[in-house]
């Protein structure tokens, strides 16, 4: 139990008649970067929202050994929603947005500001601290929202497609930043993504979800998805990275 930050035991979520995910079980080791892959509509967002207590589910979710609803009553967790779920044109500056992560702490206004600034520095956004969130670029907004997730000082980060709106250089920087944050703060990170590039390069554990299936050997299947073929062309190639724990059938 000590080894795992997150344990899911046959978790199912329904939206009315529609079953979005069914009997998903997984264990996430502490301090690692885990990636949840899957096609559009595969249930990545649903799973993350279930963990965060934002949708009702059947089954068991334990966060640091405690039943998730109990855990969430007493602790915040780091959460970055999929883009499009937040209203961005809102009269709050970047630093005010980051301060949201400090809600519930009894610290003074001044200390809150200082801490928020520290987390903005962590994502290299301190120069934009007083810019309204709606006037930042997509990638900059994502970094501010990451800082907000970090500001909860939770060891568990749930990031739903954090790379949206970033060019490949920004993606690479984002992952490097994430990795160093993970190392420094001993974070357990769960990322939902269907990115084949940097995500697979930095992930220490890749899981795939398509409603029911959660497996480690699905990348080949995923790559065969017609949408992805359409997106990246028929000759997609997955590059193996030497520092990754290897799966048997990574190559296509």
């Amino acid at each position, binding site marked *: 139990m000590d080894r795992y930050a997150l344990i899911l035991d046959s978790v199912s979520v329904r939206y009315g008649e529609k079953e979005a995910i069914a009997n998903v079980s997984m264990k996430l080791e502490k301090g690692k970067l885990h990636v949840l892959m899957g096609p559009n509509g595969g249930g990545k967002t649903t799973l993350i929202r279930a963990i965060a207590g*934002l949708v009702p589910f059947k089954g068991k979710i334990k966060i640091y050994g405690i039943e998730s609803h109990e855990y969430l*009553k007493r602790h915040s967790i780091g959460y970055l*929603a999929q883009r499009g779920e937040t209203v961005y044109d809102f*009269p709050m500056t970047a630093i005010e947005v980051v301060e949201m992560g400090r*809600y519930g702490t009894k610290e003074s206004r001044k200390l809150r500001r200082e801490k928020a600034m520290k987390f903005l520095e962590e994502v290299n956004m301190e120069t*934009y601290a007083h*810019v309204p969130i709606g*006037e930042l670029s997509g990638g900059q907004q994502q970094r501010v929202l990451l800082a*907000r997730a970090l500001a909860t000082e939770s060891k568990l980060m749930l990031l739903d497609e954090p790379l949206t709106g970033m*060019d490949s250089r920004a993606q690479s920087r984002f992952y490097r930043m994430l990795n160093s944050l993970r190392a420094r703060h001993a974070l357990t990170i769960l990322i939902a993504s269907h990115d084949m590039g940097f995500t697979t390069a930095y992930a220490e554990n890749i899981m795939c979800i398509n409603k029911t299936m959660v497996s480690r050997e699905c990348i080949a299947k995923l790559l065969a998805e017609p949408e992805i073929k359409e997106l990246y062309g028929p000759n997609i190639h997955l590059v193996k990275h030497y520092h990754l724990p290897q799966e048997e059938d990574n190559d296509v």
Partner: protein
Amino acid sequence: MMFEFLNYSFMERAIVAGTLVAIITGIVGPFLVFRKMSFMGAGLSHGALAGIALGIILGLSPTLMSVLIVMGLGFLIGLVSRTGKISEDSAIGTVYTFFMALGIFLINLSKGYHINIMGYLFGDILAISKYDILFALIVLIVVLVWLILRGRAMLYLTFDEDFAKITGVPIGWDYYIFMVITSLSIITVVKLVGVVLAGSILIVPSASAKMLSKSFMKIIAISVISGIISIFSGIAFSYYLNTSSGPSIVFFVTAFFLCVLLWQFGSNTTSRKVKIKSPSSRP
């Protein structure tokens, strides 16, 4: 003398009430605007009519009865939209027309009583009593206390409900408390401009302010100030031309909104992009 109307005590009452209302709506309005609940004010104010009529028929205070009815209505709309599958605006749309009908129906029933229906519908500054001012003052205090204690939580909830929930904002509670705050606020407005036009006073100054600033506190400040100016102008207008106070005030509130809108059109191309002096090489 330009300001002779201030000597009249009913005028003083109207001015004091107008100021209180402008502050209350200037604080509450921006939350409604950013929560996309602009319709809420209009919906709740129509419920006030039923309360007023009920109060008169039962021989109880119309203000008290409208507080009860409007708060009940606010709670009902909240309940229907939070637990049901329909959106807030459809919930308001279905519920408030019924209350409006009920109000008119009750007024019809109370034919024997002397009811100034035009006054209730469109506002009558002559009818503002010192109790109305006292009520508005109490509501203002409640609103200020709420802003201090729950303002931050409400702001977070308005910006991003999911994240607010995860960080422990009791979103259900805050939502219902906000309904109560909105209900109390709308009743103070109803006295000044009547049932039909109250929604405008609650929303329009905040909608104008929204275009003028990117800071929530400044938006509140601008909507308070522009509200006070519009309400004063409206009251003066209504006094000199002997018109109903409601339409006169709404006229100025809307005129201000249009001015801001036109000004925005004019300066749109130049002011939209904010230049930041910082390394642009960062992704």
